[in-house]
């Protein structure tokens, strides 16, 4: 990664120069973001590369966007739960199965919390996971191809919000339900919610070799709302923590009715205990119906399998596995510090932060100091588990990340600020405004034992007046703070795409060297691949016509096709023969009802066209691929349905 080194040297050079000029080197000036030092901190010169990758969820866009830090440049949008015309994801025959669910084809979702895979509590850069809230799903994205490789639907769940967070060896990715629902779903009066609805916390295992997901078990918790979660790590590895709200189990006018209790809970789940219980034959299998979609990058094809049952676990059947930690004022964020000792529950209606101690929790459990129970689950005494309270003076604390140097950074939605405070002493060190209404904050490596505490990215809900107006709707803004010093410094802000709900980040040197540059044509195992242009052909099977086509700069093989009839269903199976980095070819044909396709070097993709009109119709390459891109075109002759013109195809005749 010599480029990064250059960058560092360049910065050093610049700062030395500035020092020579008598500038206040190293100290943030009173000009804040306007000071020249902020510009230098985020400036990545042309041809230089960023130090970190940041993966920002797209919220209601259903996708994941990749940004560089510190530049804030967007590199890519990775389609996950939503159809994506740019690449044909969700339009091509190969990727349509990825969006299959028990509700049918659902080409959209609300993607919230990305998390990068870990080994021994440190980021390993194999995969990034993200949840779909609306039609509960978990996706796994390869960090070598930056493509979605797997999506598993989560049954008995609704509002898959307290996910997708992973344990420190990527044993499990968790999918907690925000809304409790009848399990199994049935026709019943809504006002009989209390005591009848259940909250499913799903534990999905990740195969260490290929990342394959499997829904191992679902813990059927009382009917609260399971809002956010984080795994334990280090000493608390083996536990998972979930914040709850609506412990009142109200079913209407929630903003009032679910905010009556002064304290809700953080549910502490000893998943190792439950895993053991399940391995010994515990739990109950119940019928379920959910899709499991896997994309294979050798045959470039996704397959969707419907699964028919799920193992459920009643928490009261596993003594010592589940406890409630009372936490004030409808806690939202649930964050665990890098040592695994502190569990931070931020009451979104309070000004203070509540920090629980893992050691105290274990001592209280061992001493059986319970303060009653809820649906058979022991409630620990607030005072017994409390490590401390951060008296912040802010309003509406949401989420906390850590810099690995003993400091925590909490966002405050209502007062629009980031507050830096010290673990153990709970004193506030610094606070900086955000613009405006900040939700999550991200420090690369945030959900790991080893955060890279150089930058923090705040993701804001409201952007007004920050950029040039673009009508009533503006893209959300994100802000980069330099957190390497005692005080935070706002160094950049940039618009994002969709709702940047949460993010995960990691050093570029973890991913850049293993990023895949092409697919090897010789490894292409696609059922309909055209590996040699000599194999290009057109075949008819009743009303289906299959066109086996290859592309290379700057032509399609074949480029003249005759014998297609109105009413046919024409499959274009296009194989890109380039073996050069970043040289895709596109394909589109007039009157096509699906997206045009972008086919990567060595890849095969299939697009359907149903010609409705007699004529000679052109197709062309949509990706400006070479000096003769404009000439990369061809014609399909479409004859009447009753025509007897034979199929024929050619190139250069």
């Amino acid at each position, binding site marked *: 990664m010599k480029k990064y080194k250059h960058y560092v040297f360049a910065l050093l050079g610049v700062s030395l120069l500035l020092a020579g000029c008598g500038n206040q080197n190293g100290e943030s000036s009173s000009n804040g973001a306007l000071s020249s030092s902020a510009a230098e901190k985020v400036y990545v010169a042309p041809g230089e590369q960023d130090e970190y990758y940041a993966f920002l969820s797209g919220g209601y866009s259903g996708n994941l966007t990749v940004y560089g830090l510190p530049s804030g440049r967007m590199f890519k949008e990775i389609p996950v739960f939503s159809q994506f015309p740019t690449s044909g994801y969700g339009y091509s025959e190969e990727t349509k199965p990825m969006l299959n669910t028990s509700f049918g084809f659902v080409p959209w979702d609300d993607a919230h919390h990305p998390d990068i895979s870990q080994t021994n509590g440190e980021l390993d850069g194999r995969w990034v996971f993200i949840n779909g809230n609306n039609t509960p799903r978990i996706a796994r994205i390869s960090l070598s191809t930056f493509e979605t490789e797997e999506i598993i639907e989560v049954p008995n769940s609704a509002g898959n919000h307290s996910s997708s967070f992973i344990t420190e060896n990527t044993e499990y990715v968790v999918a907690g339900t925000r809304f409790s629902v009848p399990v199994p779903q049935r026709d019943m009066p809504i006002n009989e919610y209390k005591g009848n609805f259940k909250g499913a916390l799903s534990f999905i295992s990740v195969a260490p070799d290929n990342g394959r997901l499997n829904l191992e078990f679902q813990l059927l918790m009382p009917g609260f709302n399971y809002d956010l979660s984080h795994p334990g790590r280090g000493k608390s590895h083996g536990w998972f923590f979930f914040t709850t709200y609506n412990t009142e189990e109200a079913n209407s006018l929630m903003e009032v009715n679910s905010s009556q209790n002064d304290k809700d809970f953080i549910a502490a789940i000893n998943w190792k205990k439950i895993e053991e219980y399940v391995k010994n034959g515990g739990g109950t299998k119940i019928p379920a119906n959910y899709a499991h979609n896997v994309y294979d990058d050798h045959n470039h094809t996704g397959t969707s399998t419907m699964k028919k049952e799920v193992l459920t676990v009643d928490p009261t059947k596993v003594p010592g596995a589940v406890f409630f930690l009372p936490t004030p004022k409808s806690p939202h964020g649930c964050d665990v510090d890098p040592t695994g000792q502190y569990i931070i529950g931020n009451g979104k209606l309070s000004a203070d932060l509540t920090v629980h101690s893992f050691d105290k929790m274990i001592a209280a459990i061992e001493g059986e100091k319970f303060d009653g129970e809820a649906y058979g689950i022991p409630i620990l005494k607030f005072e017994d588990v409390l490590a401390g309270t951060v008296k912040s003076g802010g309003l509406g604390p949401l989420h906390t990340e850590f810099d690995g140097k003993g400091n925590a950074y909490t966002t405050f939605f209502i007062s629009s600020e980031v507050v830096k405070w010290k673990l153990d002493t709970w004193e506030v060190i610094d606070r900086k405004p955000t613009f405006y209404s900040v939700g999550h904050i991200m420090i690369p490596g945030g959900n790991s034992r080893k955060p890279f505490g150089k930058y923090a990215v705040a993701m804001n809900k409201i952007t007004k007046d920050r950029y040039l107006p673009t009508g009533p709707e503006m893209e959300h803004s994100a802000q980069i703070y330099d957190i390497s010093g005692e005080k935070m410094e706002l160094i950049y802000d940039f618009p994002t795409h969709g709702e940047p709900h949460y993010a995960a980040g990691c050093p570029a040197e973890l991913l850049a060297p293993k990023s895949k540059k*092409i697919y090897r044509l010789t490894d292409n195992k696609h059922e309909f691949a055209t590996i040699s242009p000599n194999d290009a052909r057109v075949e008819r099977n009743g009303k289906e016509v299959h066109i086996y086509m290859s592309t*290379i*700069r700057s032509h399609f093989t074949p480029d003249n096709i005759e014998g297609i009839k109105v009413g046919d269903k024409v499959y274009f199976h296009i194989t890109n023969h*380039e*073996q*050069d980095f970043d040289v895709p070819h596109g394909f589109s044909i007039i009157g096509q009802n699906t997206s045009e396709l972008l086919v990567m070097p060595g890849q095969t993709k299939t697009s359907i066209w149903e010609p409705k009109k007699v004529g000679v119709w052109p197709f062309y390459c949509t990706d400006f691929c070479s*000096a*003769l891109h404009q000439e990369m075109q061809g014609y399909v002759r479409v004859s009447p349905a009753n025509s007897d013109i034979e199929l024929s195809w050619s190139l250069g005749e």
Partner: protein
Amino acid sequence: MKKASILMIIGPLFLLGLYAFPLWNIMLGAPQYPEPLGMNIHIDGIRDVNEFDLQNIDGLNHYIGMRKLPKPEEMWEFSAFPIVIGGMVILGLVIGILGFFKKVGYQWFMGWFVLMSILGVLGMYDFNAWMVDYGTNLDPNAIMKLSNPDGTPMSYKPPLFGHAKMLNFDVTSLPSTGAWMMFTGMMLILAAFFLGWKTRKSKEIEKP
């Protein structure tokens, strides 16, 4: 003469490097190829520097009507060179061993060196002739036809040695590991000759 013969035995062995390492290397860099495309010319064929470089060079060259880079079976040189080199190694070893047992004189060492040099020059001549043909014998239907300022058609012959600017490409052509090993081997043989010559001379002075 023993020391000289040992050098004469070791020297030809360096030529075996040509079976493992490229003789020549040509690199093509351009703004859109920050990681340059490259070909390694071995005695038995042309290979990629990085995977798919040859395919991508062919892809670029087709615009200006250059032929595809030859496969080993398309050029007699790639089957002849390994035999010639093998023959020279064996010949050198035989001369060295015979020298060791005093069956031949040090003049044979020079004989081998001169023969190898002639073959080397012929090889370079052939290589250059091939590049001239490759760079100027262009497809008349080429998409792009470029001419020099004086109106003559542009040649795309890569330099035999050193750097040249061809359109937007920086082309460098330099001997590679195999050639350097061959050079080392030949220098050893030259040293063997001088050593043989010196010992003979000193013995001649002693004798009378």
